[in-house]
């Protein structure tokens, strides 16, 4: 089961989408919907917290890649959260996302939020 939660950081305009559990193909539509909701106009940036993931398949990784691509195209700050040696970090490394220019990864959601806020004008 996947627990997906979208949290808006007060006074910062940053959305945090936290995913916990098993992100399978079945969960893709639900996460896609949350992702689109998080990307709706007016917000300053998005943090995708993957620290709670225990499993993610190709379909789930595709959602992360699409999110990153769309936000970058719209020039909206994006950061992923995957602690060192965590399952999520290993998966991002495995498919090569960790070395993609502009794909920023932080150990905690707070660090990622702070980083995005510092990028804001």
């Amino acid at each position, binding site marked *: *089961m*996947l627990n997906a939660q979208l949290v808006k950081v007060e006074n910062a305009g940053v959305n945090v989408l936290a995913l916990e559990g*098993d992100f*399978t193909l079945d969960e893709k539509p639900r996460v896609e919907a949350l992702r689109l909701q998080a990307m709706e106009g007016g917000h300053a940036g998005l943090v995708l917290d993957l620290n709670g993931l225990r499993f993610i*398949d190709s*379909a789930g990784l595709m959602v992360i*890649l699409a999110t990153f691509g769309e936000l970058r195209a719209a020039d909206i700050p994006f950061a992923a959260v995957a602690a060192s040696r965590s399952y999520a970090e290993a998966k991002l490394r495995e*498919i090569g996302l960790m070395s993609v220019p502009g794909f920023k990864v932080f150990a905690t959601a707070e660090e990622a939020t702070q980083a995005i806020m510092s990028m804001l004008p």
Partner: protein
Amino acid sequence: MLYSIALGTAVLVIAINILSSLAAPELFGRLMLIALGYGLVSLGLIAIARRGSVNGASTAWLVAIGLIATWTAWTGGGLSAPAVSLQLVVVVLSGLLLGWRANLMAAGVAVLVLLGLWQAEVSGLLPAAQPRPVLFRSLTLSGYVVVLAVLSAIAMRGTERLRATLGLEREQREAQEHLREKDVAIRRAYSGVIEAVTGGRLLLVTPEEAASALGTPIAEERTVAAGGLGKAIAWLRDVLGRESVRLEDSSLLIDPAGEALANAVKHAGGGTYGLYKTSNRIQFRVTDHGPGIDFENLPKATLVAGFSTVGTLGHGFDIMLKRCDRVLLSTQPGETTVILELRAE
């Protein structure tokens, strides 16, 4: 064919009767009656056949013309009447329209009719008949020879068509066999190349080889469908956590297993899966009944990371090959089996 035989026979018999009446004008009324009988019976056959009962119409028509032929012979002088030859026509027509069984039955009936006519003749039961002029008998018999020749020609044409059809079917079978052999050869070539490229990690196998490669089931076979992937992953995590499995790192199998399960759901709407063990390996098997991996896409689908036909990341096989010691793949239209193997302690 039914219509052409029925109408052709009726037209020929009517023509024979008209020609014969020129040789024996005193028989004109009788001959026209017989011609009318054949004409009406043939029209009746077509009417019945158009309602869909072709065999019924053929049987009724044969019985009717058999009766007309018998009546004509009975009233025309018995065995010496030219109409006796019509029994032969009925026998040939039975074979053409209804097959060899009807042919034999008609022959049996014709023999009985001829024996009956002989018996009636020797017993003096036949009605008195006017003597037929020689030209009349010659014309009538010649006419029946023509009818038989036409029917034989139709039969020969049918046989030739049948031969042509059988020849075509044989050619098609040979072509299919040739394609199958080619398919097997390509599969073998693919298999060798893929095995070499992956250093023996990915093996293309037949369904039989896949089945025989499996060890003892660790748990009962389960099914997966859309919406059930999370449960399947949780079940696998639970079973792999048991002491009896003895995998050094059970998490190594969960990611590739999840990809294999997702492939079954994506491409076939679901499938079955199970966990097995041999003396030194743990095996996870997923089987689906989808279209199989297209030969043209097989190398890309299995070896190129990022290749996908369904709009996903396309890293499924890449992850399976990175994590597993060996992956066995059997794929064909209607059945694809993936076996993921990891060495056990």
